């Protein structure tokens, strides 16, 4: 197991190097540059040329990449052109928000998706099954931004149940420790702040969860359908085992293996989906910052954030691979 993890971690080195090279070339080949971000839209062409020169943007790409790599070796991604602050600081301040949102979306997607998929399979052909299949189809089809606007129109503007934007009410003046506001409210015993932050998470969480939820439901349903026709399930039921035992030990444990793979892949989708969701809900995480960074050609942020997200994605999938062994003892990673 340890050799497996170490080997996978070592594979990360060439992967990250290749990614950094491709990313660097791609970003610097995009039309435009960060001059507008620094100088504003009113700057003359002379001034724009001047700032390019002052910032070293007129140097050959190889030289610029070399400078980037030298910094990267000491795990320094440089500073954001938009904010003038270290990329790692920006990531550290914004990541807890995205993590909180991603966890919420995952809890919704897994917490509702797996039971619903299981019940749909067990009651195959009933209205519950058809409704679940149709609902999950809708989840995949409806664009996230559209769903977001509809949710906000109903639950914020009309019913006034959930807030439409932000992470916490501006009037609360809550104490922040970890940057995950619900957790912060709990550990500082500011219960109103925790509750308020949780309310702010619901709508973006649902919007972000829509696609992985639909995939998890469908995958669970299909997988459970396959497993329940297996001999050992029939045997277990014939032996008179309780529904709970059959479900937990025989059906789900076997059916969840492909679902775990999907969940691992969904994390990557959630991180990229956060760009849109965070923008629509003015949710201050890495997603909305990345969107601004693309617009302003904030190269250090784009390089740093995308590489860190890629790293996280690889690590999550490594964790999923390791978790196979826990879900199914027959699988042993080597």
């Amino acid at each position: 197991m340890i050799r497996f993890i170490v080997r996978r971690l070592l594979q990360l080195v060439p992967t990250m190097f290749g990614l950094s090279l491709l990313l660097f070339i791609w970003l610097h080949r995009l039309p435009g540059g960060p001059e507008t971000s620094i100088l504003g839209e009113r700057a003359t062409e002379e001034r724009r040329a001047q700032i390019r020169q002052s910032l070293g943007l007129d140097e050959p790409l190889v030289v610029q990449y070399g400078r980037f790599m030298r910094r990267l070796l000491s795990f320094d991604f440089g500073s954001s052109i938009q904010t003038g602050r270290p990329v790692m600081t920006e990531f550290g301040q914004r990541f807890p928000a995205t993590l909180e949102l991603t966890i919420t979306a995952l809890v919704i997607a897994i917490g509702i998706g797996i039971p619903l998929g299981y019940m749909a399979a067990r009651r195959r052909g009933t209205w519950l099954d058809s409704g679940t299949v149709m609902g999950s189809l809708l989840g995949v089809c409806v664009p996230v931004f559209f769903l977001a606007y509809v949710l906000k129109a109903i639950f914020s503007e009309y019913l006034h149940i959930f807030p439409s934007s932000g992470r916490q009410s501006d009037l609360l003046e809550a104490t922040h420790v970890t940057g995950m506001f619900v957790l912060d409210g709990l550990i500082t015993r500011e219960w109103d702040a925790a509750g308020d932050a949780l309310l702010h998470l619901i709508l973006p969480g649902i919007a972000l969860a829509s696609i992985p939820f639909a995939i998890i439901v469908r995958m669970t349903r299909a997988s459970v359908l396959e497993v329940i026709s297996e001999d050992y399930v029939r045997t277990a039921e014939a032996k008179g085992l309780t529904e709970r035992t059959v479900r937990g030990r025989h059906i789900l444990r076997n059916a969840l293996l492909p679902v775990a793979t999907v969940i691992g892949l969904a994390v990557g989708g959630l991180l990229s989906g956060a760009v849109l969701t965070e923008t629509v809900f003015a949710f201050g995480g890495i997603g909305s910052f990345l969107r601004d960074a693309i617009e302003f050609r904030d190269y250090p942020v784009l390089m740093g954030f995308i590489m860190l997200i890629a790293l996280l994605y690889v690590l999550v999938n490594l964790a999923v691979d390791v978790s196979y062994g826990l879900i199914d003892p027959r699988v042993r990673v080597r």
Partner: protein
Amino acid sequence: MQRSRFRTVCAVAAIAALTVGVAGCAESKRESSSNSKDKTLVFGTAGEPKVLDPALATDGETYRPPRQVLETLIGNELGSAKLVPRLAEKWDVSADGTAWTFNLRKGVKFHDGTDFNAEAVCANFNRWYNFTGLYQNVAEYWLDTFGGFAKSESPTAPPSNFKSCAASDANTAVITLNKPTSRLPGAFTLPAMSIQSPKALAEYASESMSGDAQNLTYPKYALEKMVGTGPFKFTSWDRANKKVTMDRFDGYWGDKAKIAKLIFRAIPDENARRQALEAGEIQGYDLVAPADVASLTGKGFNVPARPPFNVLYLGMGQDNPKLADIRVRQAIAYAVDREALVKSKLPNGAKVADQFMPDSVEGYATDVKKYTRDVNKAKALLAEAGATGVELKFYYPTEVTRPYMPNPKDIFEIVKSGLEEAGIKVTPVPEKWSPTYLDDVRAGKPDLWIVGWTGDYNEGYNFAGTFFGRQKPEWAFDNPALRAALAKVDLEPSREKRIEMYKDINKQIMEFLPGLPLSSSPPSIAFAKNVTGVKPSPLTDEKFYTAEFTS
């Protein structure tokens, strides 16, 4: 089974222990808050400021907080572009236009408790004049107003027009120039010329910006401090949550703010801003989509419009030989249905623009050549120029809203249909506003394009000079007579004479017709039903100290 249950119990216990442990370390830092809901105004903005030091920026979002926290020597009257005393009680200029004397307000304190006086004024002007390094690149308005620095680092930079600032006594500051400029006194109202506490500047802003594209760093002052004399004092800038918070300054020399706390929260998506207002999470927002004005007003929200102080125009690149022919440019002017554009696509209060400045700018001429729509005339001119069926690349921006251009795609469509009616073939080139569209326009790629300008202050040069004061690749023409006229007006010290000169220049421009002015629009700003008092400014120079909650 037993083992599994044991493991679960252990995991839960560990998480509980960790939570309790962290809870032990984390204490609530809340103060007993006196800020009740009706004393705090949260205003939704389209973006965050870039920095807190307005000397380093030119954009409206960066200027919004300094407009509440800092003050300039001369201000704009609330709700208009008329110059009024602010930190200077009165001002005077010498007959040759090179010496500006300011009699300063007495008894004014900076938020850090230090005195505002003539020395503080000169400390600020001397700081800008002595900018070094990257500061010299980003101090756009200083460059535009004064031309250069004490030691300009760029070989192409013009010599500075700023000569000195002298404190002749504690309450009199004299700013001396090498030659007169049309930019003054208007530029004295710009947030970039706000007077900041010399003590705070010395403490936090002694270093310049530095680094390269991968490691640009700003001095602490630009990111964490803003110390002025305004009705609000800067409290915090929460970068992660895109919020700038300001508290009422009780030691303010003028009318105290009626609200205790002001928060600018960036909500980049315009629909999200509207929804946040309707949900009651914010009490106002800027850049209201024209399509939302009627529905918000119908629901009882206050949606005042700013007086139009902008111009949207259709640019024509004369590097295309067909467009170098005045008859083709005139044909385009006759073909475009500007009345229909204003009536069907722009907000109420928008006007057809008949020259490159709105009618509220002093120097606007009533007798310029008008190009009232006449498609037959357009066709005849095209035929005469041998350009019937000419093909033109028409660039327009996407994913952007500007005060002068609320809906670029709609504007493009209506201009295009007029051109096609006259027999011009249009190749549409939609591009993302920043950086692609702006870069391509600046590089002179389009034959036709739409863009505009919102004035910085009430001076004709701020419009005509900005567009045509120097040769630009996008226009691709050289009109020495026009350039000479603009250079002359720029050096004219008498405001009255300048106004007459601008009128002549406007006539000259509309005869030459480098592009077609399309419209001037009144951008709207929205407030909650119970928020009143903020006067919409043509310069977007809204002051929130007049805001109040009504029952």
